[in-house]
């Protein structure tokens, strides 16, 4: 049994934050400069009363509305979020009910950021290929905008809210056929945890009692040490790509498309150049969505499929990296519907 991606849909909030609005708030940054450096023209921001489960619901409904699958088909729901509606219960449980997925459906959240999609694919593959599930609904959903300070231009220019829904299913494959998902490479360096962190609201912040870290209660919302995240990326991503190529026995030329987490254009271009990947094989899609954390890779895949770039049998190399610090990469043979 080969687990494979059949279909991907995504949903964005209606409210658009354009570069003009940001440039008006921060006059030392021009519209052109933001666009040129980040590769982002606009991001979508969740409404005050719109949360991760709402975006996740919209993405899943879009998937069902294509008519290729229905809620009753799914026996597992995995949801990646770091901005859940509640501490508990899991957002996946809320979504199971709202989508009318069967009660025989397993459902859980996992807390990862930009590496989350690759980890989700790895778990989905494990569930399917060990016979624990037949059809997995892998959802990514974030409303990072709720973590951002209004006056923090470095993060407000980059992050956008979104959710994606991926249908992962099994298919009979001829003996000896290569995996449709994998090999996978995972990695973690928790010593970089402080470089991208939200302390406020967590138990250690003392929000619920006089916690040990009183200072954190007054800590800013999302804190990002951009330069150190950039250094982390330069350190781990080329090695991750190299490991994936070695484990899969593929050459760089044999990969049809490289799909990295869409952090910002500047970082991606530098990585592409460093790894010697031709621009034609390097997917970039963030201009109208921004950095949507765990949703950037599935959004890029959906758009590549929609534009006719992605075709059955093509070999993709995905790498997600960021908050944690955490990274994960996978080789994907695109099957589709």
């Amino acid at each position, binding site marked *: 049994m080969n687990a494979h991606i059949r279909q991907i849909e995504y949903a964005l909030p209606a409210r658009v934050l354009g570069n003009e609005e940001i440039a008006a708030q921060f006059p030392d940054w021009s519209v052109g400069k933001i666009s040129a450096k980040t590769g982002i023209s606009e991001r979508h921001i969740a409404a005050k009363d719109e949360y991760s489960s709402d975006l996740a619901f919209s993405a899943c409904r879009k998937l069902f509305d294509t008519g290729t699958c229905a809620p009753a088909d799914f026996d597992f729901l995995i949801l990646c979020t770091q901005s859940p509606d509640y501490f508990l219960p899991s957002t996946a449980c809320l979504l199971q009910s709202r989508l009318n997925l069967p009660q025989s459906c397993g459902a859980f959240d996992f807390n990862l950021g930009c590496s989350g999609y690759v980890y989700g694919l790895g778990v989905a593959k494990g569930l399917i290929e060990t016979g624990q599930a037949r059809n997995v609904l892998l959802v990514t959903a974030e409303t990072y905008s709720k973590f951002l300070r209004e006056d923090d231009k470095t993060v407000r220019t980059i992050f956008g809210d979104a959710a994606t829904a991926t249908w992962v299913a099994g298919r009979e494959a001829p003996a000896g056929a290569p995996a449709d998902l994998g090999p996978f490479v995972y990695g973690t360096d928790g010593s970089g945890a402080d470089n991208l962190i939200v302390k406020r609201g967590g138990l250690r912040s003392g929000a619920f009692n006089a916690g040990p870290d009183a200072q954190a209660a007054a800590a800013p919302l999302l804190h990002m040490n951009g*330069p150190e995240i*950039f*250094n982390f990326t330069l*350190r781990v991503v080329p090695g991750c790509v190299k490991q994936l190529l070695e484990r899969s026995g593929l050459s760089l030329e044999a990969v049809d498309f490289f799909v990295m987490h869409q952090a910002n254009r500047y970082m991606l271009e530098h990585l592409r150049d460093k790894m010697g990947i031709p621009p034609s094989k390097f997917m970039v899609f963030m201009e109208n969505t921004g950095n949507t954390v765990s949703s950037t890779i599935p959004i890029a895949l959906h758009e590549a499929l929609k534009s006719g770039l992605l075709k059955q049998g093509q070999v993709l190399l995905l790498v997600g990296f960021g908050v944690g610090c955490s990274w994960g990469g996978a080789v994907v043979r695109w099957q589709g519907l």
Partner: protein
Amino acid sequence: MDQNAFLRNLETICELKTGTLKGYERLSNIETWDSLAILGFIAMADKIYSATVKGEDVAGCKTVEDLAALLPNAP
């Protein structure tokens, strides 16, 4: 390190005309030295000098000379 090449690269990062920088300028006087330029400097260190420079060390620099001193074989 080729001081001239370093200054020309830094001018590109800061979007300055070629020949603008002499090497002793205060970074606070360079309007385009901002958070994006810091990323640009880290990228330059990685690509041209195969060096990893810490973000906090770059942010702590006061002059162009201080930046040069972060790179290997600094003059």
